[in-house]
């Protein structure tokens, strides 16, 4: 036995083992520590208690530290010198392989210098024992000094615990120096602590829901509970100053919930340490399997890893929410301008909700029991991005049972949800709703993916978080400054009904929670049940289901097909059907890829997606008359309409014969039936009109017999009435029946504010089309009134395409939108004796984008005719601008 070992044996016999239950004389301190470590490991394996494991390891290390102090310091001097524990050691929460943080506290510099050697020896021997020691030696003056660049040290003092030595000097630190320091610097301390924590959360994407989470540093990890503890300690030490309510300890129920979460995390961390034999905090997939198989931190025995991870996420979410609630009460080091802004934000309070310091409160406590008030509360959050106040959250939790039972799942839910989904902070509102278990009460199908971990190397988040993130990604497109994402942002603003896309995003992966390999099929089944229960109109329900059924289509095309091959584009267009659906599917694909992990969407992938979109959108515009309906070949869409009219099948087929397939794709069965009905009355009334309101606009549908200049006359009438045409289409069937549709904004609210004007408007359309009234007076009065300058100048571009259509020349017109534009273009074309076979009219902001399929004498246009039209249009479009434009 070496001299060193003998010395340790003596130490062991004389001091440490005085307090031990079973002394063994041949142990060195190292052997003692090893034995105790194994004992603690065995106890953990037997009882699975994280709390007792970390507490007992602390006690073992306490004894070792005391013993070494006796050995190396007492013999020198102990007056004016003390040993304290910091960090986890100070909190009596020493995990199996955690560092041991020590503070050697000296009364003055001279003593610190004198004790340098004993300190070095203590630390050296602790390393030899197998402990990772992290020591610091400070004087009282050092501790009293606040170092902006080392706030961490001051924060670490909040956990300090006396071990041995001069108790008087330690008391001066704890009772005088630390309270004075905190009272003096509490604002900076709290702000820096918040800053460090926010930066840490940001490193993990501000989400708990990682597939392989870090249970120490990740959001909702143990570090967050330390932050809460430090904030509480600062509040207690600075009790003379008024602090936000939440910086004090939580209510009993919340404290219990939090304690459960900390115990769960502690037990899991102990297991990870023992398993890896080092300070390992990542819950890898392999670790998840083992934790679940052994039922670590639960009393459920063996459970599946998915179930175990759900428990983990529930506890981490509790911990994360608690910390973020506290942090949000800490004002950042912001300018007075920001504070003014915060104050301004509070002005959005209304009769149901008030906003104080960026947090939402219910005006009436009883509102927490009313599911419709609560749904409006989430919509309020989605609109403004405020967080729930602690008080509101408590009220909602207390009223959970009543709320859960009364939460609507039908059309009343969809009325709220469709409003919420399109608001800028929808994802945040959905997350809050989900964390309160109310989202799964409203949409039970979502429960399948609640905290669901799916294992692959590509995904980083749980499936529910991936769905929320995809919604967030789309909303962020609106204000993003990344150049390669901007075209997608513009696309989003062009959508007629974005609510359907957002609902599809919310539900697109719900099938991943069901057994089987085809998650798309499963998601579709679940979504079909959801949209049926929520009473979505058939067209909306079909669109949502279509998006879910095809949500991998564009990704797959990008991976497997040549996107420049016309056949690839044609096939995609055929599957998608309409330009509106193509836009939605493109955005869904982008959001789906980008929310897989932060690096998944590269500029390269985005560019390819955009090219595929642009190619397919162009194909839609240029191929309308390529595929016309033939009565003998019935498509699925036709059969869907025919099923609603079993007795009028032949009449329907006759009406559809010769109409472009795009007509069928872009009109719902109800609309087709309405058009058929109108066509069947043409003998009695040769002009059939329909006017309805759609998404804040009006739609005028005209069904009549083909005649020269019809489209331009209709455009002129609408302009004469002061209407602003945003979209239009013109189709004709083989029998010469025209179906023209115009979407327009009622610029002067003529039809809305004066109900009798609606009938006068319809009468005016019929009379002018029937040549019973002239168009010119209507136009002249309007031209005089319209002198408003445009805000933006768009260069006019005209492009001909003789290739895309077998029978027509395509003319694409891009120009500045202005009142009467469509009338100007279409009347110019009519003056050049052109027939408009098909017209696709669209407006994006100030830019008009119109595509006309033109013939003259039923033939494509010659080069000379094209030049003549170009000259006439260029002249007219420059002349049609008021002189001050």
């Amino acid at each position, binding site marked *: 036995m070496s001299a060193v070992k003998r010395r340790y044996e003596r130490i062991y016999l004389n001091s440490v083992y005085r307090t031990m239950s079973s002394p063994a004389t041949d142990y060195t301190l190292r052997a003692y520590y090893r034995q105790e470590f194994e004992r603690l490991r065995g106890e953990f394996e037997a009882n699975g208690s994280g709390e007792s494991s970390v507490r007992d390891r602390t006690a073992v290390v306490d004894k070792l530290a005391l013993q070494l102090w006796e050995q190396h310091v007492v013999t020198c001097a102990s007056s004016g010198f003390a040993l304290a524990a910091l960090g986890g050691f100070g909190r009596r929460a020493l995990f199996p392989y955690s560092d041991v943080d020590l503070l050697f506290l000296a009364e003055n510099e001279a003593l610190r210098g004198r004790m340098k050697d004993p300190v070095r020896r203590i630390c050296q021997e602790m390393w030899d024992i197998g402990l990772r020691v992290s020591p610091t030696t400070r004087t009282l003056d050092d501790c009293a000094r606040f170092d902006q660049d080392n706030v961490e040290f001051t924060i670490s003092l909040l956990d300090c615990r006396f071990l041995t030595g001069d108790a008087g000097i330690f008391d001066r630190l704890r009772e005088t120096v630390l309270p004075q320091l905190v009272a003096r610097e509490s604002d900076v301390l709290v702000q820096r602590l918040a800053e460090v924590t926010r930066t840490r959360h940001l490193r993990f994407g501000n989400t708990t829901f990682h597939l392989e989470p870090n249970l120490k540093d990740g959001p909702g990890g143990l570090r967050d509970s330390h932050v809460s503890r430090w904030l509480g300690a600062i509040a207690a030490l600075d009790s003379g100053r008024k602090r936000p309510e939440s910086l004090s300890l939580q209510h009993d129920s919340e404290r219990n919930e939090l304690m459960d979460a900390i115990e769960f995390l502690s037990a899991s961390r102990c297991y990870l340490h023992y398993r890896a034999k080092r300070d390992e905090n990542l819950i890898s997939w392999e670790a998840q399997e083992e934790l679940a198989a052994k039922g670590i931190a639960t009393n459920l025995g063996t459970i599946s890893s998915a179930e175990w991870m759900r428990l983990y996420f529930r506890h981490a979410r509790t911990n994360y929410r608690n910390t973020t609630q506290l942090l949000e009460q800490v004002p950042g080091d912001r300018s007075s301008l920001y504070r003014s802004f915060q104050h301004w934000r509070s002005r959005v309070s209304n009769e149901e909700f008030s906003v104080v310091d960026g947090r939402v409160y219910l005006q009436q406590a009883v509102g927490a029991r009313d599911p419709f008030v609560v749904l409006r509360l989430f919509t309020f959050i989605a609109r403004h991005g405020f967080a729930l106040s602690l008080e509101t959250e408590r009220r909602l939790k207390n009223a959970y049972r009543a709320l859960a039972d009364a939460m609507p799942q039908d059309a009343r839910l969809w009325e709220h949800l469709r409003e919420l989904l399109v608001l800028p902070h929808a994802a945040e509102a959905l997350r809050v709703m989900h964390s309160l278990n109310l989202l799964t009460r409203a949409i039970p199908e979502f429960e399948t993916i609640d905290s669901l971990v799916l294992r692959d190397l590509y995904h980083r988040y749980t499936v529910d978080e991936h769905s929320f993130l995809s919604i967030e990604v789309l909303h962020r497109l609106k204000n993003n400054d990344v150049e390669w994402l901007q075209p997608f942002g513009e696309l989003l603003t062009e959508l007629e009904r974005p609510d359907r896309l957002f609902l599809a995003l919310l539900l697109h992966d719900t099938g991943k929670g069901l057994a089987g390999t085809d998650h798309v099929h499963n998601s579709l089944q679940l979504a079909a049940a959801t949209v049926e229960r929520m009473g979505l109109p058939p067209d909306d329900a079909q669109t949502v289901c279509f998006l879910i059924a095809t949500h991998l289509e564009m990704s797959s095309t990008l991976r*497997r097909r*040549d996107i420049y091959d016309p056949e690839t584009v044609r096939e995609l267009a055929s599957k998608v059907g309409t330009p509106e659906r193509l836009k939605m599917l493109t955005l869904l694909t982008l959001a789906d890829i980008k929310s897989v992990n932060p690096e998944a969407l590269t500029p*390269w992938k985005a560019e*390819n997606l955009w090219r595929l979109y*642009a190619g397919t959108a162009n194909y839609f515009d240029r191929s309308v008359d390529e595929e016309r309906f033939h009565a003998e070949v019935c498509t699925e869409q036709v059969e869907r309409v025919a099923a609603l009219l079993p007795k009028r099948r032949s009449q329907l087929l006759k009406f559809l014969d010769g109409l472009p397939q795009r007509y069928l794709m872009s009109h719902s069965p109800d609309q087709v039936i309405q058009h058929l009905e109108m066509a069947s009355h043409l003998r009695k009334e040769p002009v059939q009109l329909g006017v309805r309101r759609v998404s804040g606009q009006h739609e005028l549908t005209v069904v009549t017999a083909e005649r020269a200049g019809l489209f331009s006359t209709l455009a002129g009438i609408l302009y004469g009435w002061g209407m602003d045409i945003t979209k239009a289409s013109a189709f004709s069937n083989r029998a010469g029946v025209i179906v023209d549709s115009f979407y327009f904004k009622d610029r002067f609210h003529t039809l809305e504010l004066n109900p009798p004007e609606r009938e006068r408007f319809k009468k005016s359309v019929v009379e002018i089309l029937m040549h019973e009234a002239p168009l010119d007076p209507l136009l002249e009065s309007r031209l005089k009134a319209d002198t408003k300058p445009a805000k933006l100048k768009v260069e006019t571009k005209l492009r001909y395409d003789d290739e895309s259509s077998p029978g027509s020349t395509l003319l694409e017109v*891009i120009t500045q939108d202005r009142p009467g534009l469509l009338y100007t273009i279409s009347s110019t074309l009519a003056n050049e004796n052109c027939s408009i076979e098909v017209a696709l009219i669209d407006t994006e902001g100030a*830019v008009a984008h119109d595509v006309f399929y033109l013939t003259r004498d039923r033939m494509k246009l010659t080069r000379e005719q094209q030049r003549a039209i170009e000259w006439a249009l260029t002249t007219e479009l420059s002349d049609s601008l008021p002189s001050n434009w």
Partner: protein
Amino acid sequence: MTKLEAVIQPSKFEDVKDALLEIGVEGMTVTEVRGHGRQKGHTEFYRGREYTVDVLPKVKIEAVLPDRLVDSAIQAITNAARTGKIGDGKIFLSRIDDAIRIRNDERGETAL
């Protein structure tokens, strides 16, 4: 040892990867790249906006192979990536002096 660099159409990547795995090439580095050879590029229009597509998306595969696998790897890539059209891509070969596995200092072909 030979280093193989193949620049191929993105749509052929999955097929090429499967073909290489089948002949025993297990390690490869894949990069999303842009470029053009004789294919040059073309001009596209979307809603009146002109997009000059002068460099096209490609995928670059890099793999260092034992010499015995080189011919079969070339064959696998050409079979899987060829459409016969301009733009199918290229394969470049170069000699490699040595390879070192960082984990355990293995060298040469055993490090591959």
